[in-house]
């Protein structure tokens, strides 16, 4: 089925998310939609899928204009979507998820579960992977959950398949397997739209590439185009894909974590006997696929898991068991993984967010009253220093772009006197310009002789920033290796395979 989008325009208030976008996807081709976070790719696909109403433009399938009232219409017309955030009901079984919305029934609406199981099995067999139809979705690894999404789309006989940032949650090996599935689908004559911002993947599977920036199509490219050409097309200027940094100069500062264990309330061990050391003046990147204990590890460092066991020694003094307040006072800066829920109060102004962790005394609070003048002066200074692009310090922080929000978090955390910096996913959902800035600030912190921990799920970022890389898998440390370790070794480590020679664990 041939998909054509003509002049799609979608506005959210003053923001034009899609500005007259044209796109043609032929059957039997993989068409890449390449663009930065916030470029409008997902908006476009949600328009296509009937989740948003376009303000202008039309959608054509095999030359016929479509009018989708909702996703149901889009699906019936043959469009399937593998969503970035899986559209699966976590407490349902695989078969229930696949059948939902077009259930096979016998009698008056009584579910025919065995038919649904059969659909799951036969579709999975076609692609040579195995999924247990009776497994509950929330118990499955994300890679398998994604396959359930694919089965769901295929079981409705989708002819146009949209993959929205499908590799964000996968190991490199799972990514390879996904690519193979996409090629197989292409050979079956499906039209495939592949949304991503990762150049490596584009080069691997794309037949054609359309680059989107600020809601507009800015060009088409060939998969053979060199990386920096694609990158500069995507960003709109020349970009530097590597991080400039000198060799590490170690200082005497040191964070030593030993035998750290964190368990969830129902007893599952999510950080399992983790030990490592970070010296002043070096960046340790914790790599691994999302959900392998990195989140809980950083939370434990900051004191958010009071039940954690083991020890966390910062310059010789024990942090474990201290309250978050005391840990912060000990000089730990913390950039949480999800800035909008854990890092900032969206309704509060930039100025208020910047002093959020300093409301218990001088200089910003005196005799129980906020010192507004001092606060605003401080805020203006930080907004300047961290290049936060805003109309004013009174703007609610939630109105800023992802990159500028992250700069506010960074400004707050770095404005105290630090003895350790923990940054979890510091560049997720951040535009390329801000990424460069954030990386530079992190490297400056390291060069000031402070131990730095960065959690990243993006292998490129890990390799670019790290002095050493620690890979986590299922809560355990697979290994700690130098930053110049080959990518395929790192990839295997992310799947839980230990490297043959252990890197120095000093």
């Amino acid at each position, binding site marked *: 089925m041939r998909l054509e989008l003509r002049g799609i325009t979608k506005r959210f208030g003053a923001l034009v998310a899609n500005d007259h976008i044209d796109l043609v996807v032929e059957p039997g081709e993989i068409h890449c939609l390449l663009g930065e976070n916030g470029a409008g790719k997902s908006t476009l696909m949600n328009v296509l899928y009937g989740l948003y109403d376009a303000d202008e433009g039309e959608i054509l399938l095999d030359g016929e204009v479509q009018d989708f009232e909702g996703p*149901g219409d889009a699906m019936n017309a043959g469009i399937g979507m593998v969503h970035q955030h899986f559209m699966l009901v*976590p407490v*349902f079984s695989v078969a229930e998820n696949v059948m939902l919305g077009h259930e096979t029934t016998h009698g008056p609406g009584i579910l025919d579960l065995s038919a649904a199981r059969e659909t799951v099995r036969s579709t999975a067999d076609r692609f040579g992977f195995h999924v247990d139809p009776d497994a509950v979705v929330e118990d499955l690894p994300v890679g398998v959950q994604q396959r359930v999404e694919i089965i769901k789309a295929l079981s409705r006989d989708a002819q146009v398949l949209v993959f929205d940032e499908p590799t964000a949650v996968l190991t490199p090996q799972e990514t390879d397997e996904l690519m193979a599935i996409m090629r197989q689908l292409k050979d079956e004559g499906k039209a495939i739209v592949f949304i991503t911002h990762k150049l490596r993947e584009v080069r691997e599977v794309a037949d054609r590439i359309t680059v989107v920036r600020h809601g507009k199509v800015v060009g088409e490219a060939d998969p053979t185009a060199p990386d920096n050409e694609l990158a500069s097309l995507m960003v709109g200027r020349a970009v530097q894909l590597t991080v400039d940094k000198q060799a590490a100069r170690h200082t005497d500062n040191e964070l030593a974590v030993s035998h750290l264990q964190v368990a969830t309330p129902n007893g599952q*061990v999510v950080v399992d006997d983790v030990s490592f050391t970070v010296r002043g003046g070096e960046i340790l990147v914790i790599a691994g696929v999302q959900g392998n204990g990195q989140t809980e590890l950083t939370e434990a460092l900051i004191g958010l898991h009071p039940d954690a066991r083991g020890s966390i020694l910062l310059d010789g003094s024990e942090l474990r068991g201290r309250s978050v307040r005391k840990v912060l006072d000990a000089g730990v800066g913390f950039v949480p993984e999800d800035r909008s829920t854990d890092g900032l109060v969206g309704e509060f102004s930039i100025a208020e967010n910047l002093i959020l962790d300093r409301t218990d005394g001088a200089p910003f609070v005196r005799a129980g009253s906020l010192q507004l003048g001092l606060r605003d002066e401080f805020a203006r200074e930080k907004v300047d220093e961290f290049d936060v692009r805003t109309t004013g310090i009174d703007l609610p922080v939630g109105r800023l772009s992802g990159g500028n929000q992250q700069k506010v978090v960074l400004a707050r955390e770095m404005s105290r006197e630090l003895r350790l910096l923990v940054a979890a996913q510091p560049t997720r959902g951040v535009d390329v310009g801000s990424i460069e800035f954030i990386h530079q600030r992190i490297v400056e912190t390291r060069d000031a002789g402070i131990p730095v921990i960065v959690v990243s799920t993006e292998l490129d970022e890990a390799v670019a920033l790290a002095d050493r890389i620690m890979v986590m898998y299922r809560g355990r440390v697979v290994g700690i290796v130098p930053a110049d370790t080959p990518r395929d070794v790192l990839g295997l480590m992310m799947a839980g*395979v230990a490297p043959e020679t252990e890197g120095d664990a000093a």
Partner: protein
Amino acid sequence: MTAPAVDGTPAATPDAPRTVSTVSWKTPIALGVVLALYALLLLLAPREGDARFSLSTPTDFFQLPVYVIPGMATAWLCAAIGAVLVVPSVLATRRARRTPLWVTGVFAAVLLFGFLAWAAAGSARDLSVVGLLGGAVALSVPLVYGSLSGVIGERSGTINIAIESQLLAGAFTAAVAGSLTNSPWVGLVAAMLASALVSLVLAVFTITYRVNQIIVGVVLNVLVIGLTSFFYSLVLVPNTETLNSTTRFERIPIPFLERIPVIGPVLFDQTIVVYLMPVIVFGVWYGLFRTRWGLRLRAVGEHPRAADTVGIEVLRTRYRALLIAGLVGGMGGAFYTVVSINQFGREMTAGAGFIALAAMIFGKWNPVRAALAGLLFGFATNLQNVLSVVGSPVPSQFMLMLPYVVTLFAVAGLVGRSRPPAALATPYTKE
């Protein structure tokens, strides 16, 4: 997931994530505290004389004697058995296991028996076991129907604080419609419709206008109390003969079965509204977990966006769920005026809707468990009635608190891990 077939030593990580024990000491401590309170009661307020338990009604196949047992001795014996039962609970917890359910169950039953023996000791009247259990079944009717109403609504994602107003509106309407037509059936249907109307208002405000569900529920409760009280004094009181005097449902004894001692009169000599209860409990369970309707309803309550992306109309599904919930809740409301007694009284539901809500939570949003919880709370309510008949030494004000105390403890301490529907209280917007 298939492991990549490559060279390299697999990490020492086992495939399943490691777990550590997190069994809490809550259960043994709770048992210990209850036992201590019970023993304290026996120590501080010893009673003289024997307790008399009667088990039979005159129509039974054969008559069981009235059992006369020494009150205090029995009560202390029960305390001793209870103390013995704490031991397996402690042992289980030390071995990082859960306390077996039978231990908690037997513990509760034994202590309850001991308490009854203590309370009835020295009373001139027999404590009728049939009355205790039969009344429990009857009193649980509004709780069971109310909790089912809650389960259906909340499984679809709408918090239903308004069960109380559904019951009350149902009771009022059943009284009026039943009195006008002299037919309990008309009263029942009218109650269901009135309750569905309350649900509809809840739906319009929470689903269409996305008002906070708890606020709408609370407002509805207050509104319905106000409206029914107003019309009661203004219209029903002056016209009691025509508007507030219903014909009740007849008891339908089931031949043969009703003459079995104890369970006959308790289970097989009831009204149609009671007989329908297990049918509807099963129906709701089957509907929720075995049909397309239920699958979509639960999907909408767990992850409405996912439901939307497969073409399910989220708002329509929620509306439908609330309306059905309203119909079911209305059956509980009808109980007050066409089953239990034959007229409406101001605020006669007296918080039953909130206990039904608690039963729903105690039942972990499962219709069968919620119904069982409703029975338990009904029993607690009736216990208070029965004890006041035999002249219990406990002040009646304390006895009136009993069902609420039981509810509070049940919901706070004994539920264990329960997870409400993920999208509960979240209105759905398409953007």
